[in-house]
């Protein structure tokens, strides 16, 4: 059985880890010093050997991504840190930046050096005010002490870091839309190819990496690829932050090696499901990953095992729901999110999600028709793989998977016209930032 690890979270308990003093006292910036002693090629190879896979959702091997960057174009190379963290249920980057901002900055400097990049950007979700303040403070300290800026630690390497507060749109987490937004344009995804590695920010080679991915880098440099591979599975090595939420006793971020069974994470770290509630359905990696059921409770949380069950590891945001939650209502909540966040560029996502949200709403209001289920299913098929970017694909995940596992709940709802007694209908409106009505998920406490 895997044991919980403390790599990314190793300073979470240190009171002043967010300050340069606290960070350096606990061994911080040692990795940077040793990284500056090796060549960029060696560092790129090291990250490749470590098997680190991107933590932003797609799980693409980071070292391979770095290898795609042409080094001889004569254009600058940019590193962009994706701190937009918009995936519902995901809050790992936020805590990482709040509690240990220097870990991220150290990772950025090392990665920049490895990529021969002299200017990195942090694209921070607009709502993340507190993490932003922490990053700003950390940047100021690190600049002052020469960990960032001209001639880092006297090595002759220049790395500048720009913090950019985004305007708060889920689509701006998609890497090409992020680059558009960073350039000051409408946040809509770009046509690929060319891929960002070749022509990204300002038409120059660009690497976009998630916060957590980059936070892993100093540890890999410090302890080596061998050590890194000692955690996790062969194809998904390393530690991972799992953000568990929903009807569990202690929701929060927990660090486990990849490949730890979901049940172990929930039971050992979160104290299990709330008392008297049994797991009914859960999303393994944010709302864009297909739902799983209690049947899949023991699935190892790594990229390949989850994929084998027909879902995705995504961001590792586990949202756990019990018998007391209506899956239809939860799905409507997510669908409304996608409807609101669709960028509008392509037809299937813009129109299809708008349609599906209305159908779900109608079903919940008691005006569903049994044909609607077929329509929902068709609409999902017509969006999936046909939309411009992965947001459209993600929007179909909850609907398609809930229809697969909980079709009878939909049918009952359509037949009876209302939710069964044990669910409270529309427990309350959570936020209304769009003029759109967004019912909360139905959790009766």
């Amino acid at each position, binding site marked *: 059985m895997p044991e919980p690890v403390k790599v990314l979270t190793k300073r979470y308990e240190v009171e002043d880890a967010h300050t340069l003093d606290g960070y350096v006292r606990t061994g911080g910036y040692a990795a940077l010093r040793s990284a500056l002693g090796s060549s960029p090629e060696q560092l790129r190879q090291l990250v490749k050997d470590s098997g680190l896979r991107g933590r932003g959702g797609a799980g693409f091997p980071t070292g391979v991504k770095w290898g795609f960057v042409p080094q001889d174009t004569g254009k600058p190379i940019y590193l962009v840190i994706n701190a937009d963290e918009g995936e519902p249920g995901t809050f790992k980057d936020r805590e990482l930046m709040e509690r240990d901002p220097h870990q991220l900055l150290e990772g950025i400097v090392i990665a920049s050096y490895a990529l021969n990049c002299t200017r990195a950007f942090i694209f921070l979700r607009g709502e993340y005010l507190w993490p932003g303040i922490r990053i700003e403070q950390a940047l100021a300290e690190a600049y002052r002490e020469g960990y960032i800026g001209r001639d880092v630690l006297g090595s002759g390497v220049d790395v500048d870091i720009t913090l950019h507060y985004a305007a708060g749109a889920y689509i701006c987490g998609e890497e090409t839309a992020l680059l558009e937004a960073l350039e000051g344009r409408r946040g809509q995804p770009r046509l690929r190819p060319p891929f960002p590695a070749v022509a990204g920010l*300002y038409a120059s080679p660009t690497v976009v990496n998630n916060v957590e991915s980059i936070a892993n880098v100093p540890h890999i440099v410090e302890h080596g690829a061998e050590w890194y591979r000692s955690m996790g599975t062969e194809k998904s090595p390393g530690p991972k932050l799992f953000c568990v939420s929903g009807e569990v006793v202690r929701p929060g971020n927990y660090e486990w090696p990849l490949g730890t069974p979901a049940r172990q994470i929930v039971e050992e770290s979160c104290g299990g499901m709330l008392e008297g509630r049994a797991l009914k359905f859960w999303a393994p990696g944010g709302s864009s990953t297909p739902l799983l059921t209690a049947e899949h409770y023991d699935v190892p949380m790594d990229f390949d095992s989850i994929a084998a069950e027909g879902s995705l590891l995504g961001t590792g945001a586990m949202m756990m729901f019990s018998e007391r939650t209506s899956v239809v209502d939860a799905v409507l909540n997510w669908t409304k999110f996608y409807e609101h966040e*669709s960028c509008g560029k392509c037809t299937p996502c813009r129109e299809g999600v708008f349609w599906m949200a209305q159908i779900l709403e109608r079903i919940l209001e008691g005006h569903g028709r049994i044909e609607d289920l077929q329509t929902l299913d068709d609409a999902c098929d017509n969006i999936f793989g046909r*939309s411009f970017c992965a947001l459209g694909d993600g929007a179909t995940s909850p609907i398609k998977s809930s229809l697969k596992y909980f079709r009878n709940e939909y049918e009952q709802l359509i037949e009876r016209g209302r939710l069964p007694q044990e669910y409270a209908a529309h427990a309350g409106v959570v936020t209304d930032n769009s003029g759109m009505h967004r019912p909360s998920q139905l959790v009766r406490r």
Partner: protein
Amino acid sequence: MTDTKPTTPTVTATIDGREITVPKGTLIIRAAEQMGILIPRFCDHPLLAPVAACRQCMVEIEGQRKPMTACSTPLADGNVVRTHLTSEVAKDAQEAQLEFLLLNHPLDCPQCDKGGECPLQDQTLAHGAPDSRFLDDKRRYEKSIPISPQILLDREKCVLCARCTRFSQEISGDPFIELFERGALEQVAIYEDEPYESYYSGNVAQICPVGALTATSYRFHARPFDLRSERGVCNQCANGCNLRVDVRHGEIQRQLAHDNSDVNESWNCDKGRFGFEYVNHADRLREPAVRDDLGNLRPAAWITAVRRAAAGFRAAMEAGGGAAIGVLTGGRITDEDAYAVSRFAREVLDTDNVDFRLAPRTEEERDVLGAIAGTVGPTYDTVEHAPVVVVAGLDTEEEAPILHLRLRKAVRQHQQRIVVVGPVAGSLAEIAWRWIPTAAGDEAAVLAALAADRQPGDAALHVIDVPPADARRPDASTASWPSSRVPARGSADDPVAASSITAAGGGPAPDAAAPPETGRPPSVRGRCSTSCARRCAAARRWCWRGSGWPSRRARCAPRPAWPPGWAAGSPGARARPPRGAGWPRGGGRAPGRGGGPGPPPARSPRRGAGCPPAPAWTPAGCWRPPPGARSRPSTWSASTRPGTSRTRSSPRRPSSGSTP
């Protein structure tokens, strides 16, 4: 086409089971077109960069997990592509997109201007579902709102294909129309504080694949199937855009740009598109008139008028020979008409006294016109592919709008360098590479200095660098623009370097236009008097008389995305220096291009060899003008002068030989 160059690498693939070889990089949708397979599309336009937004053009490519958009995927060697004609996957994907597009569509085809020529309607008819599964609420917007005096927008009908916005960004370069909001609420809109004042706005109505953008001048006037279409050539300026003139009950209902890749591609300007109301004006002569014995003009039958004219010619020739006759054509006929007239004059009337104006405006013009009459000038294609273009004393957008679009295209696609010589850089300020300010009328001295390879220190050559206005020029690494100054890009074999205008000179600034602080040339907008412009705008119609356009405010330069920390050249306020006195207005035509026969070459023999060479004809009667980079309207045609009766303008169809 450059495609046929033997050096171009090709790819061979099959589409719907048939093999095709096309140049590498050809998009699947274009390759299929060549085979006669029409893949449905909305956002695709051959002259706009692909966006792949509407997802209508999906095809199946063997080996790909999911269907691909034909409008954005280049055909690769060995591809096995199946379109909706042979693939269920592609057909299914396309029908699904159609269903999605119709969800929010108001379906008011019976009262829509586009009905009958609407790609969405045609698509639906061809393979749409007979019934809708959509029971819910459609998004609702206020019906057609005017976004400019010429253009109306109905957001309910819009399929958000972004053709209009891309046209504005990529082609006309005046991004006054944009997409706003997101999700199902995404919509086309204009800025609150920047009116949609484009010289090319009519094109967006033409390329809109649905009835979302319509022209006020045509709204509810006719149905496409009631129209008879004639081909024509625009007579508003020297550019010679090909037109489709749509006529109903003998009256022009609208004019559209007709595709001609050698001239106007698929575009025209609003003056050419909307400036036809005078044709049906009550004051216009519609039939010949003959003077009676008392000297009064009386309407007459054509045969009477022709006989009368013939008799007059004959009498004049008997009295004084051909030399007694002069033929004035006016400056707005096509090359072909001009050629026909000049042949008639020289061979039948036996005279060389052919001209298109009453008198040369300046003495030097006489020599210039004599020297260039009958020569075949550069074509739009040569202008587009020239590495450097020197524009002297011409504000292209104001005076030759389609040439302006070509220059923009050349800058965007071929990194052309434009050197502006004149008191203002005008509309070219945004795309020019260097500006050599002169006093009005002194352009010739600069050209002579350039030709003589004189250096920038020379008094005549005060060269001003113009920062690249478009930071997305494909080849340009923005990193090489550390400041608002363009680094000298010249090299030893660079034609520009050779003419020594790569460095900023230190000569004195001429009085006419002192170089502005920002290094960006001032631009002059709007050439009507203010009151005239206001009248036109109030009347919501185009001012075709004389100067053409209601004035518009200086518009914002496209905002380049400058990397942080790098000073972007501030466009600054555009000064409005006095325009050089006596500048010709738009509408004059360069000789040898269609501006009439021009003055006869001195002492040319009357017949045969001495005639100006025939203009380039193409077999189908398709008219191909050799246009001018030299299209500074060095001529002043009588009929364009304000106050001169327009009724003297000549017939406007290229194919109809005109008889004076």
